[in-house]
């Protein structure tokens, strides 16, 4: 029983991390059709910002700095590099690929290739007893952060004018501009939000794994992709569910099957979902053809 609880909460913690990464990716893609390959680099940037400040300043400040780093970097990337390429969607992706290569390498050049230990403050380092299981506190922090982010995102999307613009833009960008709205402001905003969440994910991921390393963000990004594809682009709820599912499956497989198989299982789930989706599309097409 206690194993089950521990596995569940750890899996959800991991899922929370994925959600923080994937929700930003999915928003960006939904609104702008841009696959942000530099998203992993933003995670890494956030992680290193937190790592630099932990121990010197209160941990909350380190987290805030990580969020700010991600947001500012993302806004810069959008305005300086992505924006001039709106007529060349594929090149936008290529530019983020270039950044995704260069930024982690830059981090590696400055702080070295080895993982750096991130010492979480004492309040986060301990464990909490739940139903006989000693669950590390950081799992709860991650889960809570994800829930807060999910709620905030939903409020933002449903209650604010910018949220309205974003939701409308996901459906039809051109019509949004034809209503006299500068949709590019929404682009920058969404990119910054995604960057902020990536920065947060970097900092909390550093706590979860106990260390930060230059390619941490990029390896997390892969699972961010898996989650986005399973959950659906531009769908915050779907992404949240998919993130939880992938995190849980990974943890359980790692424990009950073999260590390391969990990552593999996540990709296998992706394949299954794609197959099911492909078949459903195929079935729909068949029905359409028959009709």
């Amino acid at each position, binding site marked *: 029983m206690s194993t089950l609880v521990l596995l569940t909460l750890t899996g959800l913690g991991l899922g929370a991390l994925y959600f923080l990464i994937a929700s930003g990716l999915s928003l960006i893609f939904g609104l702008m059709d841009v696959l942000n390959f530099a998203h992993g680099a933003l995670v890494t940037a956030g992680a290193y910002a937190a790592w630099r400040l932990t121990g010197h300043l209160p941990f909350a400040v380190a987290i805030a700095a990580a969020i700010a780093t991600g947001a500012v970097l993302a806004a810069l990337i959008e305005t300086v590099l992505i924006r001039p390429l709106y007529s060349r969607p594929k090149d936008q992706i290529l530019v983020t690929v270039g950044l995704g290569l260069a930024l982690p390498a830059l981090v590696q050049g400055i702080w070295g290739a080895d993982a750096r230990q991130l010492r979480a403050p004492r309040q986060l380092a301990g464990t909490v007893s739940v139903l006989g299981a000693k669950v590390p506190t950081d799992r709860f922090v991650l889960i809570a952060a994800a829930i807060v982010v999910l709620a905030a995102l939903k409020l933002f999307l449903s209650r604010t004018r910018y949220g*309205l613009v974003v*939701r*409308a833009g996901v459906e039809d960008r051109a*019509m949004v*501009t*034809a*209503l*006299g709205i500068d*949709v590019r402001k929404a682009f920058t905003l969404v990119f910054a939000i995604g960057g902020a969440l990536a920065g947060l994910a970097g900092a909390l991921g550093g706590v979860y794994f106990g260390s930060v390393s230059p390619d941490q963000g990029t390896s997390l990004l892969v699972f961010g992709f898996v989650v986005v594809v399973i959950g659906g682009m531009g769908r915050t709820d779907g992404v949240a569910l998919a993130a939880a599912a992938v995190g849980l499956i990974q943890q359980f497989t790692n424990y009950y099957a073999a260590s390391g198989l969990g990552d593999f299982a996540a990709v296998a789930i992706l394949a299954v979902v794609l197959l099911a989706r492909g078949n459903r599309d195929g079935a729909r097409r068949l029905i359409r053809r028959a009709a």
Partner: protein
Amino acid sequence: MILELDDVRVTLGGSHILQGVSFSVAPTGVTALLGRNGVGKTTTVKAILGLVPRTGRIDFGGDPVHRLRTHEIVRRGIGYAPEDRCVFAKLTVTENLALAERRGSAHAYDLVYELFPELKTRGAQAAGTLSGGQQQMVAIARTLLNDNRLIVVDEPTKGLAPKVVTEVAEVLERAAERVPMLLVEQNLALVRRLAGDGVVLAAGQVVHCGPVRELLADAALTQELLGVGQARGENVTLYTRPAPSGGSTHALAIVKDRQPPDEVSPPESTRSDAP
């Protein structure tokens, strides 16, 4: 003239869709933009709004706007109801309207809800679940919500049932009392009822300008330019396409020569009945 186009050209996907379109829109009443399917009416409208890359000059209210971006053009006071309505399917009716609210403009909800009481009662419904007619109401309501100096409506009756066409026509008529309108429409009965001037496109060029009444009075010309001889409260859409290249000269030749059409439709049976 509230809107003037001078030598507007558009190339899309390698084909020259508009080949130098020039015309102007009167500061009052309805100007109809006519032409067979695929001649470039929608493209012209999009060119005005900056939704397609174009060259040439476009003046709105006396100021050049062809260098501005779409949202800047719109903020100068254009309301646009696009061909496919383009309501945001996943947003509610209220949200669709709220999104259309422009800063620096009064929001005429009273007028909108007076014209379309249904939009108030269905405020919480997702716009995608509305009928085609109701979606068109949302699209038109969006243009009436703000203080516009021009509204541009692209085929508002396309695919609507005759009864709904009548409703739309009534609303457009009321709207036209308040603000000048550029109307793309295939329903000639409706055009006859609403429009003063007409501009006819063929193969990406203007082939005729002038009062709509005179144009529609000439059955042969109507048949040739618009490919329709009758309109009975419904869309008569003949599927034709401009000839790939030399098409424009061909179309012009028709205007000059006024050759009799191959098939003459029953003359004038429809002229008098408006929807």
